[in-house]
């Protein structure tokens, strides 16, 4: 019992020393607290697939009441801005190529006559596919405006309405705002970088400066040294995650549907795994430079192949299996589901157990390597 208490006291002392080392300097204190919050704000605005401003040009060869009615639908939507009325088909290329218009809508000469004759008319829509995702979203908007025109015009001119109407709704994010999806995902992403680096560096720095040997001649056991190195990083990570969470709720006002207890339980598991990987890196690396390089080599694929920006389900199968070792993948799923859907711990089991396995394996591996190196 007393030995346990002693051990605990030693861990607390080491944690305190580590925290002092990181936080005593104002610049390093700021560099841990400011970036996640600032990044969450800027990226929260920038990281969106939604379109609220689409430039388009028109080649109206019909100049009829019907074509004007169709175009009024676009102009009145608040999303489309008409940048030009083209005269010749040859002008289309110059507007698209130079990125002056994302879309060009071409209405043929006999548009109104065909409509009145009941044969139906075609309208050409040309989109700049250099960013095919944006183009696809813009095409979707035009499609729904044309659908609206069809039901208005068709109703007035005695067309039979389409037999089926699709009534769609989106759950958990009714207005389909990318931001609702992206910012909860950033809670984990923005904390990963510095948490992992901090851990990886802390041991490497001591080793390079020779203070690690001094630490080894103290009564600390390898397990205690490791806990003392892990706890400060977990603490810093928790604070960073809370900062991003606050930005999501207070600045962007995204409604939080879940329980904080569940969210923090998931985050703890994630931070344990991230710190475990960081410790493993620092156990493998011989110098600070190596530790830094290795952790960067891990952080980049972790953050890009995590499902934050592009869905995991669009990846090839072999890569999906490979992402099983990515702790961020589970963290993003947890934060999103708790945040938007209010998912409970039971639904999150499929994310929690891989994190637990990752944490256990990396922490065990790191402690094995530390004790091995000591002898």
């Amino acid at each position, binding site marked *: 019992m007393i030995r346990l208490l002693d051990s605990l006291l030693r861990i607390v002392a080491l944690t305190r020393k580590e925290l002092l080392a990181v936080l005593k300097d104002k610049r390093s204190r700021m560099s841990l607290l400011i970036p996640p919050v600032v990044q969450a704000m*800027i990226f929260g*605005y*920038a990281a*969106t697939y939604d*379109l609220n*401003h689409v430039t388009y040009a028109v080649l109206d060869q019909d100049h009829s009441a019907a074509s004007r009615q*169709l175009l009024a639908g676009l102009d009145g939507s608040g999303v489309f801005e008409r940048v030009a009325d083209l005269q010749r088909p040859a002008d289309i290329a110059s507007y698209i*190529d*130079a*990125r002056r218009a994302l879309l060009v809508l071409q209405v043929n000469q006999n548009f109104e006559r065909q*409509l009145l004759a*009941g044969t139906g*008319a*075609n*309208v050409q*829509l*040309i*989109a*700049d*596919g*250099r*960013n*095919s*995702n*944006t*183009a*696809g979203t813009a095409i979707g908007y035009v*499609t729904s405006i*044309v659908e609206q*025109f069809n039901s208005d015009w068709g109703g007035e001119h005695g*067309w*039979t309405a*389409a037999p*089926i*109407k*699709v009534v*769609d*709704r*989106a*759950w958990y*994010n*009714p207005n*389909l705002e990318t931001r609702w999806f992206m910012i909860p995902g950033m809670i984990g992403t923005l904390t990963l970088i510095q948490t992992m680096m901090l851990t990886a560096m802390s041991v490497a720095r001591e080793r390079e400066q020779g203070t690690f040997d001094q630490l080894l001649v103290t009564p600390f056991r390898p397990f205690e040294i490791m806990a003392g190195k892990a706890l400060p990083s977990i603490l810093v990570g928790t604070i960073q995650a809370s900062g991003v969470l606050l930005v999501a709720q207070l600045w962007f006002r995204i409604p939080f549907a879940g329980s904080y207890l569940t969210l923090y339980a998931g985050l703890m598991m994630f931070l344990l795994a991230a710190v475990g990987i960081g410790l493993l890196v620092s156990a493998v690396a011989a110098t*600070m*430079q190596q530790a*830094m*390089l290795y952790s*960067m080599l891990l952080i*980049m694929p972790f953050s*890009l*192949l995590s499902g934050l*920006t*592009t*869905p995991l389900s*669009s990846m*090839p199968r072999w*890569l999906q299996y490979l992402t099983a070792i990515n702790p961020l993948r589970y963290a993003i799923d947890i934060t*999103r589901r708790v945040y*938007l*859907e209010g998912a409970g711990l039971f639904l999150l089991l499929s994310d929690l157990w891989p994190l637990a396995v990752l944490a256990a394996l990396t922490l065990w591996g790191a402690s094995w390597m530390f004790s091995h190196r000591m002898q």
Partner: protein
Amino acid sequence: MIAWHSKLRRIRALVWKETHQVVRDPSSVAIGVVLPLILILLFGYGLSLDVSNVPIAVVIEEPSPEAMELVAGFQLSPYFHPRLMRTMRQAQQLLLEHSVDGIVRIGPDFSRHVSAGDAELQLIVHGGDANRARIIQGYVRGAVGAWSARQAVQGGAAATVPVSLQTRLWFNEADNSSYFLVPGLVVLVMTLIGGLLTTMVMAREWERGTMEALLVTPVRSGEILLGKTLPYFLLALVGFALCVLSATYLFHVPLRGALWVLLGASMLYVLVALGIGLLISSWVKNQLVASQLTMLVTFMPAFMLSGFLFDLRSTPLVVQLITYALPARYYVALLQTVFLAGNVWSVIVPNTLALAAMAGALALGSRAAMRKSLE
């Protein structure tokens, strides 16, 4: 004349020394050649916004020939992987477990409503991933539209809707998202290795004290910069060549512009990326802080704010102003245009000029930073 001659000799000696250092240091070859290759492969395969085989629940509350025919449309489509069920409860549970991305509900009395012309199809998508949700909505509308058209043709009608939209996606007819993601990835990779190469090198020289040794020789600060930059410039170009080769041969992205335009723009960008690294490292002089700063000011903004993934047109004005300060923004516009659209001078010239101005400013800036640190 003699001064000029000896200047050239000094630069040559420095380049020679630096080249030796590059060749003998496996870490810089790893960053310059191995890293870009791994990254472009991993991300080229891993990042995709294409949606296919979407698991959806199809709830048929009352089977009828019309309903089954509609379901057959979903089953035959490569976009869907439908799971049939009878009750809404079942489907909701699957949606909550993320086993399906959406629910299509065919209500009771469907066939009677179809013949009356007022049938409704309920579509519920999981709105979490808004972009994916929008794509799925589009697919479902398309499938229902195809079904309506078939019904109408069977009924002998000439046209089903007044206006039908014919869309064409220029530069990317097949709507393949890697066409726009891979050129963007090249930007990301070049940003990273350009920054890392010089950050690590200069900061290391300061940290080890060898910079002072260099500075007491007759070599001028501008000459040191030139000598440092040239070998890494060539190394980064090797990495760039590997990226372009994988883009065209592995990911089949067309290169429609001229090769010399691509190369010229990329050389400018590599200079800018190296310059940022130089500036940071001669300012901070600490490998650890310098590399973290490089990661924060180059990699993350290039990922989030360059237009590589997220279209900049919809971001608020303040964020757009920030992006104008980012070199990656201009390079993304250049690469997407040169790869997909061809030699569009109205895009190429202004963006290249912006990069050239930045390269010049960075060269002057790092020289000034170096001079100042002499005192």
